[in-house]
C-alpha cells in the first residue's frame, strides 16, 4: 500500500503537474472571477444572501477540481489497464482495492492542497474567510465529490479501451458538467431548462453542499441524500467492475 502511495506521489509531483494544480484554480479565480466581479457584478444573491462573487466562485472552483478527477482517473486507469500494470499488480499479490485506496488518498491530498490555496487566494481577493467548521464540512463534501468522480472515471477506464471513445466520453462529461452546474453562477436564477438540466448534474449537488458549508448556510438534506446515494451507487459499481476485472 505504501509503495503504491509512493508511486502515485512520484507520478503526481512532476513539475508540469504541480504547475497545473496551481494554475487552474488561479486562472478561474483571478482571470475569470475577478474580471466578472469588477466588470459585471461584485456580488451575487445566493440562498437569499448577497455574497461576494469571488467567494461564490471559490466554492465552485473546489467543486470543479473534484470533477477534473474524472478525466484524470479515467486516463490513468486506462493506461494502467493497457500497459498491464494492473495485471502485474495482481500477479505481485497486490489486491486492487489497495491500488484504488492509494490513488484516492493521493488525489485527496492534492485536492486538499488546492482547497487551502483557493480559500486563501479568495480571502486575499475578497476578504471573506470561512469558519473552521464550514471549511471542515466543505472538505468532507469535497471528499464525497472526489469519490463520485474518481469512481466514475475509474469505471470508465476499466471498461473503455478505445482512445477515441475515451476522448469523446471525457469531452461529453467534463464540459457540460462544468457549465450545466451551479459552479460558476446561481443555478436558481437560470432559465428553467438550464435549472432542470443542472439538477441532473451531480456536480451541482457537490458545489451546493461545499458552498453552503463555505458560507455557513443550512445544508439541504435532500441534496446531501442525493449526493450520498449516487456516490454509494458509483462506489458499488466500481467494486463490481474491479471484481470482474480481477477474475476475467
Amino acid at each position, binding site marked *: 500500500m505504501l509503495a503504491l502511495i509512493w508511486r502515485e506521489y512520484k507520478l503526481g509531483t512532476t513539475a508540469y503537474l504541480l504547475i497545473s494544480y496551481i494554475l487552474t484554480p488561479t486562472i478561474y479565480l483571478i482571470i475569470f472571477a475577478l474580471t466578472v466581479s469588477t466588470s459585471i457584478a461584485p456580488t451575487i444573491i445566493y440562498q437569499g444572501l448577497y455574497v461576494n462573487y469571488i467567494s461564490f466562485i471559490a466554492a465552485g472552483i473546489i467543486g470543479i477540481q473534484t470533477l477534473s478527477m474524472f478525466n484524470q482517473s479515467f486516463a490513468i486507469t486506462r493506461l494502467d489497464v493497457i500497459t498491464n500494470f494492473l*495485471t502485474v499488480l495482481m500477479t505481485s499479490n497486490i489486491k486492487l482495492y489497495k491500488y484504488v485506496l492509494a490513488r484516492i488518498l493521493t488525489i485527496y491530498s492534492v485536492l486538499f492542497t488546492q482547497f487551502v490555496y483557493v480559500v486563501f487566494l479568495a480571502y486575499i481577493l475578497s476578504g471573506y474567510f470561512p469558519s473552521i467548521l464550514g471549511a471542515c464540512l466543505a472538505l468532507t463534501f469535497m471528499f464525497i465529490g472526489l469519490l463520485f468522480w474518481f469512481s466514475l472515471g475509474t469505471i470508465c477506464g476499466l471498461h473503455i479501451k478505445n482512445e477515441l471513445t475515451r476522448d469523446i466520453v471525457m469531452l461529453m462529461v467534463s464540459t457540460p458538467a462544468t457549465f450545466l452546474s451551479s459552479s460558476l453562477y446561481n443555478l436558481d436564477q437560470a432559465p428553467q431548462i438550464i435549472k432542470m438540466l443542472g439538477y441532473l448534474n451531480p456536480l451541482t449537488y457537490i458545489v451546493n453542499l461545499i458552498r453552503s458549508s463555505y458560507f455557513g448556510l443550512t445544508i439541504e438534506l435532500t441534496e446531501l441524500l442525493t449526493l450520498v446515494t449516487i456516490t454509494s451507487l458509483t462506489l458499488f459499481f466500481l467494486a463490481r467492475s474491479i471484481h470482474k476485472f480481477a477474475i476475467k
Partner: protein
Amino acid sequence: MNIIEAVSLTKIYDGSIKAVEDLSFRVKKGEIFGLLGPNGAGKTTTIGMLTTIIKPTDGTAYICGYNIQTDKDEIRKRIILVPQEPAMDLFLSVYDNLYFYAWLQGVPKALRRNLILNILNELELTDKINSQVISLSTGLQRKVQLARAFLVKRDVIFLDEPTLGLDPIGKMKAWDLIKRLIKNDRASVIIATNDMREAEVLCDRVLMLKTKPIIVGDVGELKKIRGLTIIRLSLKDKGKSDFSFLGDINGVLKTEYKNGNLDVTVNDPSLVHEIVSQLIDRKLVLLKVQTVEPSIEDVFLLTFGVK
C-alpha cells in the same frame, strides 16, 4: 520434480469462443518451456490462466503444487510475469520503476538499492539509472522490464513475447541475458513466443498449440518426430521455372528459392531422387545437392499447415 502441471486447461470466452482447449503439459524445475503458436493460438490466455489472472472454463493447473483456482495468493508469491507490453511507469526513472517493484515484492528497504544497482550493472544499464523510461528505446525498455523480472527470485517466471519489437542484435543480447539470468536463478521459465529462433535458442522443450495442443517435445526431438529434411539444390540458372511442379510430389512440403539455392522441405529423404530427376527433365543444371537440418521454424510451418 514438476513445478507446473496443467491438466486439461480450457478457456472459452463469451460461451462460444474457444481460446484454449484441453491443454495438458508439465514443466520441470529449472526448465525453460516454450509455448509456440501463431497469433491467436491461445499463448497469452494460457499464461493468463497459469498466472491466476484468467479463470479457466474447465480443467486446472498446479504451480509449485498449488491449484490456480483455489490457491491464487500462494501462487502469486512464487511467480513473476513479464507481459507483452512494458508494464512500467513511463514517466518515472529506471531506478524509480525498479525501486517501486522491489518494494511491491516485499524487498526490505535496506536491500533495495544494492539489488537494483547489481541488476543494472549486470544488464549494462547503469548509465540509464536516472533516465525516464519513456526516453529509452524499445530495446532498452525491454531490458528494464527484464531487469525487473530478475530483480527478485521466484520459482516460476512467465515471459510473454519477451523480445517483441527488438532488432536482431537486440534479440540476441536479450536471449543471452535471459539465459544467463535463468542459469543464476534456477527458476522455471515459460516463454510464449511465435519467434521460432527465440524458441530454438532459449527453450529446453516447446509446446506448439493452436487453441489445442498439437505437439510437445524438446526442440531436437520435434525435428526428428516430424521427419523433416531440407534438400538444398544449387542451380546454375533458375530460368523461368517457379518450381511449383515440385509441390505435386507427394511428400514435398515447401519449396523456397533464394540466392541460387532451391530448398525443398520433404518428409521423406528418399524423395531426393524424384526431385532431382524432375529438375533434370526441365533442363535445369544442378551444381550441388545436399541435405540440411531443418530449423524449428520449418517444424512450425509444417505443424500449422503452411506449405
